């Protein structure tokens, strides 16, 4: 069905330049490589998530280094993800905790409102800590490589409803 609507979603992959630049993405779509989050979930960090924010960022830098080494080893076929244990506290846990702290004096974006959205306060974006999604739907108007081809679609897009102006 996808093919009928957007034939270019398959043919784009026969473009060698596109394929070489989007290779890893293509391999995840075909389940030949793991999405990065699965690798990040295997990277262990110091379990004390109550440490100071500076300490946590320090941990984050170290974890990023470990993550990149592990990702390379997995991609080269030297390490099998499935054989790795999941640690008690992972790089993803650390990210979730740091995100919560950013939210508490919000600087997710460069408006840097600095307010505590966990207490229900709103910044310029008018959002507190809650998130809302509109009814999710099949969307075909994307760039050809992002359109799922066949049944093994494994891409997930975190997106906005783009407003033309007034908003960025």
């Amino acid at each position, binding site marked *: 069905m996808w093919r009928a609507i957007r034939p270019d979603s398959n043919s784009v992959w026969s473009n060698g*330049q596109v394929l070489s630049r989007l290779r890893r993405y293509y391999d995840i779509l075909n389940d030949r490589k793991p999405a990065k989050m699965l690798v990040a979930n295997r990277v262990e960090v110091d379990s004390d998530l109550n440490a100071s924010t500076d300490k946590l960022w320090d941990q984050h830098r170290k974890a990023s280094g470990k993550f990149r080494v592990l990702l390379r080893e997995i991609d080269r076929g030297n390490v099998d993800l499935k054989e790795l244990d999941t640690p008690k506290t992972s790089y993803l846990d650390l990210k979730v905790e740091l995100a919560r702290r950013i939210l508490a004096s919000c600087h997710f974006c460069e408006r840097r409102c600095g307010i505590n959205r966990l207490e229900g306060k709103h910044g310029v974006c008018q959002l507190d800590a809650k998130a809302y999604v509109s009814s999710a739907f099949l969307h075909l108007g994307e760039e050809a490589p992002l359109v799922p081809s066949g049944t093994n679609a494994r891409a997930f*897009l975190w997106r906005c409803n783009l407003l033309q102006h007034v908003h960025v």
Partner: protein
Amino acid sequence: MIDGVEVDGEKLASLARHLKREGARNINYVGGDPTPSAHVILEAIRNLARTETNITQLWNSNFYCSKELMNLLLDVMDFWLPDFKYGTDECAERLSKVKRYFEVVSRNHKLAHDETVVEGNSGMIIRHLVMPGHLDCCTKPILDWIAENTPLALVNVMSQYHPDHLVPKNPEYKDINRRVTAKEMKEAYEYADKLGLLWRPVS
């Protein structure tokens, strides 16, 4: 105002798994960019990882996020789909009411490109919406910047701009109160070609 469903990380993750089974690949946030909802998205991602769900994570954003958030996203996003809209801070401030646009947005493009795209573990398609009369201040400087700083990114040069309902009412937006002409698009495409950008397969 809000016409969506409230979600936490767990709900978002189960929605993602459900959508994946249905063949979809997209969650739309009510209220604009995913940036302010990053905490919930990261929780959802952790949940998806814990259930060993192999789904590519793409970040489709205006890229006006802080450096701190970029750091949190760098090792989890498999694909970047940022918008690069304005070539000058003046245009950004007048049309989108944000400050330091170019510095912030170019920094984030550069970070994503150098930290992940160069190493071949992320893909990147930069979307640039051509605006009427903004070729010299926005389109060309942005394409120049991309050619020089993020040469491995693909570029979607988009023509679908149309003035929304607020534009005709505000004299401040007079310059963008029309569609882009075919001649302007031709100029943009030719410029992208001249720079050797890979835009055709994704535009």
